[in-house]
């Protein structure tokens, strides 16, 4: 029997998004576990500096929330890959839907998880500093507390980085769904390139250049534009790729 009710795309996307938030709740519990692990790893310091002159040695341990943010980036990348798997994609067909609505709801969901991940990563870093402040011994020093405007900056930048990694994960996930052998080929290429790059030129140039393109951009507006454009491009290519997939494949 055909339905006479016309369903609008934004309505489907909204319904699918809310459904995914409820159905994929385990995504957030894994985030919680990952961030707790990151706090434990941070207790040794994010980086260390040691130097000495004759008879005088100094060791500095730097405590930051960097590990929390980095692990959240990895979590975001993996989460995006996981939601491209067949089991998750079939969930979209609970509703009357098409590929466009499926992609859009995935993108909105990934943005939502990026906001949650990015914000909690920064806040976890702050809570780590509070805990360390209570436990640090005499002689340890307290750095300047983050001013409020820098906290906001950190939240925005963190969310954008998490979203970029989600877009990359979504692209990789779709690629692997389309061509299964990519699941072996991609890690081999990336890891192999990093090993060969590190041995031949001292550092893998392409990866260093990609790193510089985003992480050495000091103008916030340009950074936001770079992240948004790259993410849009990755999502766009992902959606084009999946046109080749059969319905419910």
């Amino acid at each position, binding site marked *: 029997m055909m339905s006479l009710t016309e369903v609008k795309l934004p309505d489907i996307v909204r319904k699918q998004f809310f459904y995914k938030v409820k159905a994929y709740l385990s995504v957030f519990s894994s985030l919680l576990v990952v961030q707790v692990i990151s706090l434990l790893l941070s207790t040794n310091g994010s980086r260390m500096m040691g130097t000495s002159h004759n008879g005088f040695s100094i060791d500095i341990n730097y405590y*930051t929330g960097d590990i929390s*943010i980095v692990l959240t980036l990895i979590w975001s990348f993996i989460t995006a890959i996981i939601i491209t798997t067949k089991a998750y994609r079939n969930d979209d067909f609970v509703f009357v839907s098409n590929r466009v609505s499926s992609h859009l709801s995935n993108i909105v969901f990934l943005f939502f998880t990026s906001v949650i991940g990015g914000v909690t990563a920064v806040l976890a870093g702050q809570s780590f500093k509070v805990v360390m402040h209570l436990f640090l011994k005499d002689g340890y020093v307290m750095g300047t507390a983050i001013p409020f405007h820098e906290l906001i900056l950190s939240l925005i930048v963190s969310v954008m980085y998490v979203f970029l990694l989600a877009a990359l994960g979504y692209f990789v996930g779709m690629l692997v769904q389309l061509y299964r052998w990519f699941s072996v080929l991609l890690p081999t290429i990336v890891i192999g390139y990093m090993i060969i790059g590190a041995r031949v030129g001292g550092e893998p140039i392409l990866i260093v250049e990609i790193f510089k393109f985003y992480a050495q951009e000091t103008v916030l507006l340009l950074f936001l534009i770079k992240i948004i454009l790259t993410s849009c491009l990755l999502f766009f290519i992902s959606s084009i790729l999946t046109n080749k997939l059969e319905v419910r494949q």
Partner: protein
Amino acid sequence: MIVAAFFPLVLLLILIVLIYSISKNIGKIPILQKLKIKWALVIYGAILLLALLFSYLIPAGDSSVYPAVSETERNEAEKAGELLVKAAYDRKNIRKENIEDVEINDQSTIPFEGEQLEISVEETYGPLTVLVERKLENDQKIEYIEYHTKTIIENLDLTDEIDPLSVSIEGELLRVMNGGFKDIRIGMFDKEFTISQFTSDNGVELFDDSHHVWGEHVLFLRIPKGVEVIDKYEYVHYVKE
């Protein structure tokens, strides 16, 4: 060497596998199945917000142990060190030069009746230049003044941690050595890369160098007229007459 080079990559892979396993199997963990995930997330969020509020209440700021200095002061200390060493190499009379940010770390007078003075520089905090001024008379006293510039590690002034040089006379031997061994350990809260990317000049550095300025030391000796200086290792410069 190779193991050290690939350690970050191996660590990254282990983390990816660990996080993937957590993400994939989180629903199968019995404790988490019993736990109300929604409530766990709400409580976690509340803890994070409370910690954020608390972070603005705790007495944050500079070290209670070491004085903090600005980047400008660190640059000035570096410049002062260069000027001090240059003045010593140019054999200028530092006592009369008044170089900015150069301070006296220690000074004293030692009785000396010998005719030869052998200078022995043993373990010191760093490169040491000895500058000798001959007095116009033989008053049988050696005066020494230790000039130094600030030692700044990151933004902490550790100058006071460096003890004055130990200068002593044993017969006709003048022994110069450092005041004692120091091992300092510091914990520092730093800004996350998501902030420093926009507050530093070059964004996030892939290989972040720490900033430190080791203080320069010049030992200024005023020796009695007629005393011959023996300096086997060429530490000594003589003030221009």
